[in-house]
């Protein structure tokens, strides 16, 4: 397996390699190097702790995008006892960037949906790098409506850079598909647990990200705009993404503090891809716990709670002024204001 390491992990990866080499050398030559090895292992532990306990938002984004980070289908395979994949939106096609089906979770039937990145270049091309078209969102909605019909809870896995920015996606109503999912997910008569495992790329992630319980992995992110897009708008300079990542407050700890997510799931040391089974077990336990909790709530109450949960989100102040001051009138100008028609969407995100 060719190893891919992130820039900030490199000192650690080098140290780990040295330890491996020493072990091999010691074994081959029959020389006892256990003292040296244990010193280096201690050093590696410290270094690992130092790196992973002080991750910057940008470093977390790099981890969330790590090519070895487990994908939705890999998690499904590790978490569920059985999974039967279902295909198609019944209207246009089958979008490989969204997967879904019925699964067995410890004796409980659930509907699973999720965005799906490829594990290699070939699969990435087939899955459009995990960026859904409208038919993907419609497939997810079809499966969710099916779950509602058969009173199955829904588990949704989110790991997507964004809805696909393409001509056909627009022609087939990308925005409409997303909006429709938002409406339906808010009122589905069954419980929904959302697990944000990697990238939470704006509206394309939100379109399968509404639920009763939002669980987010420690190094996942969820953002209104990509840091690159934000930097491009603010400074016309996509290379300042690190600064933008800080400003957007998009990490799991940030979003826990903001009340956007309910639960932050710690990752194994060295992040999810270093110990996928351990990560999968943690997710499984958290999902089962959430479903147990939610199954005790009558469906009507559940839907009310979900609405109230969304309803609360937003920060504003209520002015104590009785009314707004009269709008300004430019002296002597009786003409209708004809605003310039130059689109300046600065401040508005035109990202997916």
């Amino acid at each position, binding site marked *: 397996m060719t190893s891919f390491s992130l820039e900030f992990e490199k000192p650690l990866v080098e140290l780990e390699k040295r330890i491996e080499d020493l072990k091999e050398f010691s074994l081959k030559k029959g020389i006892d190097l256990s003292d040296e090895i244990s010193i280096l292992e201690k050093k590696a532990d410290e270094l690992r702790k130092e790196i992973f306990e002080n991750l910057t938002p940008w470093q977390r984004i790099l981890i969330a995008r790590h090519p070895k980070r487990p994908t939705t289908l890999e998690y499904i395979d590790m978490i569920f006892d059985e999974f039967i994949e279902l295909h198609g939106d019944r209207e246009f096609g089958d979008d490989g960037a969204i997967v879904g089906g019925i699964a067995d979770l410890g004796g409980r039937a659930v509907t699973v949906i999720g965005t799906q990145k490829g594990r290699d270049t070939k699969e990435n091309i087939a899955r459009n790098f995990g960026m859904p078209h409208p038919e993907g969102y419609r497939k997810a909605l079809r499966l969710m409506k099916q779950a509602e019909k058969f009173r199955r809870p829904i588990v949704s896995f989110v790991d997507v850079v964004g*809805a696909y920015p393409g001509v056909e996606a627009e022609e087939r109503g990308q925005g409409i598909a*997303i909006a429709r999912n938002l*409406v339906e997910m808010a009122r589905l008569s069954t419980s929904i647990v959302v697990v944000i495992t990697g990238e939470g790329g704006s509206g394309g992630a939100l379109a399968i990200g509404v639920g009763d319980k939002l669980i987010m992995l420690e190094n996942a992110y969820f*953002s209104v705009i990509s840091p690159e897009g934000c930097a491009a708008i603010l400074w016309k300079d996509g290379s300042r993404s690190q600064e933008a990542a800080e400003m957007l407050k998009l990490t799991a700890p940030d979003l826990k503090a903001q009340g956007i997510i309910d639960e932050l799931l710690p990752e194994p040391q060295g992040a999810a891809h270093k110990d996928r089974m351990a990560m999968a077990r943690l997710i499984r336990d958290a999902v089962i716990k959430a479903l147990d909790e939610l199954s005790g709530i009558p469906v009507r109450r559940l839907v009310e709670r979900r609405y109230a949960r969304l309803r609360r989100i937003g920060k504003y102040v209520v002015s104590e002024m009785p009314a707004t001051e009269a709008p300004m009138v430019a002296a002597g100008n009786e003409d209708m204001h004809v605003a310039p028609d130059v689109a300046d969407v600065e401040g508005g995100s035109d990202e997916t």
Partner: protein
Amino acid sequence: MPNFKGIFQGKQKFVTVKAGQVPEEPADGLWTKCRQCAGILYKKELTSNLGVCGDCGFHFRLSARERIAITLDEDSFVEYDEDLLTTDPLGFPGYDTKIEAAKQATGLNEAIITGQGRIDGYPALLGFMDFSFIGASMGSVVGEKVTRLFERAARQKLPVVIFCASGGARMQEGMFSLMQMAKTSAAYGKLSEARVLYISVLTNPTTAGVFASFGSLGDIIIAEPGALIGFTGQRVIEETIRQKLPPGFQTAEFALEHGLIDMIVDRRNIRKTLGSLLSLHGGRREEAG
């Protein structure tokens, strides 16, 4: 005849732009240039034509208050929730000053005005977005006002009409902004369950987070001619597919051709169209419009 004449008599108060904001404006300020056909237009004529070029039909962008004036029956509008003010929940650098500047430039508190009024005598709850307020991006206040409008309409069983315009979510409010898409959509769900009519009118431009929430959720979706309508910004699409986009891509006409909207209505006919739709949905005329 619609009662928009008030705007020119100075008795109603309207926001105006500072001189120089209209590009290529001849010095005397009486004339302006059409952005589509480049024809020289006498401003008074353009005004009485509701901001539509008499030669080519190009629809100039309107402010929210201008839109109110040309759409609603005179003096019928009562504003709601104007006391909701924007904060800076993330401490986003420069956001405070940006909001202040937008308030100064537009005389508005935020990118949408909501309230109740009458169209051709038919009462409705209304929203008017204003693109000159930070690209009419949706932050917490826009999301809250739209949500309250839907909730009120569901209670009062009054139809809703929202004139949309937006560059998308307000990135300076981070995830609080993005979640307004889900919040407003959920509120639309309530309205829909109450079987109350919602008409969205998409004006230039309606994109990204607003299009992918309440913008495209209308029971009936109307667009103004030539309006840019879509989810992803064109620059992002071009960078992704590395191709020039076809002419007319993401226009109202494109949206109609692809089945994304119900109809395109010339601004000069919108009162009549809305009045008919409200009437056909059981609206009772309160007063001649």
